[in-house]
């Protein structure tokens, strides 16, 4: 089985007097189905941009707001992160990203633009 290694690093020299600088790394054994890094253009209807359907297996999802509408035209609109019941649980500003371990047998993950179009980059990998 392939191994996926996600690493998060959080740093700040001035949020506290004790410098913030730590990394956490995981080693994930993954299997099909997976979605290689891809791009999608979200509009203002979440149901039009379902990234991942409901699944009984844990799926690790990476999503990034590219800061553009189409790969070249800039946008600062917020990109809402929702489940397929239209419940928003987060929003990405231009350039921001998230990494989520998703598991729901009834609800998937979808994207919705606050206004206009937003190009997002995403990929997912299923835990074996």
């Amino acid at each position: 089985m392939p191994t996926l290694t996600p690493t998060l690093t959080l740093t700040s020299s001035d949020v506290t007097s004790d410098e913030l600088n730590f990394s956490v790394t995981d080693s994930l054994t993954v299997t099909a189905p997976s979605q290689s890094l891809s791009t999608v253009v979200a509009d203002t209807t979440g149901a039009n941009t379902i990234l991942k359907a409901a699944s009984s297996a844990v799926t690790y999802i990476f999503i990034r707001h590219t800061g553009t509408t189409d790969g070249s035209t800039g946008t600062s609109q917020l990109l809402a992160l929702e489940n397929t019941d239209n419940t928003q649980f987060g929003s990405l500003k231009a350039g921001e990203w998230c990494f989520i371990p998703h598991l729901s047998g009834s609800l998937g993950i979808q994207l919705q633009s606050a206004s206009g179009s937003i190009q997002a980059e995403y990929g997912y990998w299923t835990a074996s």
Partner: protein
Amino acid sequence: MATTTATVSITSNDLTPGSALSVSASSTLMKAGLTTGLNQMESGVMNIPTSIEFRLGPLATQAGPVADNTHNIGSYLYICNKSTDNTYWVDWGIHETMMGRLYAGDWMFIPWNASDDDAEIEIEANTGTNSIEWAFFNSTVALPTAAA
């Protein structure tokens, strides 16, 4: 204002034959709608027993130290299941809606939108007591009001 940077890398040498995966992204954590950095954070490590739903972070309507200074703003949340037993896991969700699962060693990072109290982040341990590491970045982290 503080500058806090979140960086992710996702790599794999054997996911696709002949094509190693190497994803990297970085962003600076900003106040909602602004270009200034977040300047408050909370973090900690907790052991959570099974069969109890816990809330991470404040409620959207939880009052801050200044009038109308509630938590209805963008925030960032990091959670890591530091348990070492591979049979342990923590489910996470939005209020009563399950969203995902953190097995031992797994982590997540989301720009959490605390839009209302029903957007609270809930976690629940399974199999045994799980050890959770977390950090919450916000522009209006409030301390609990002291008893009279």
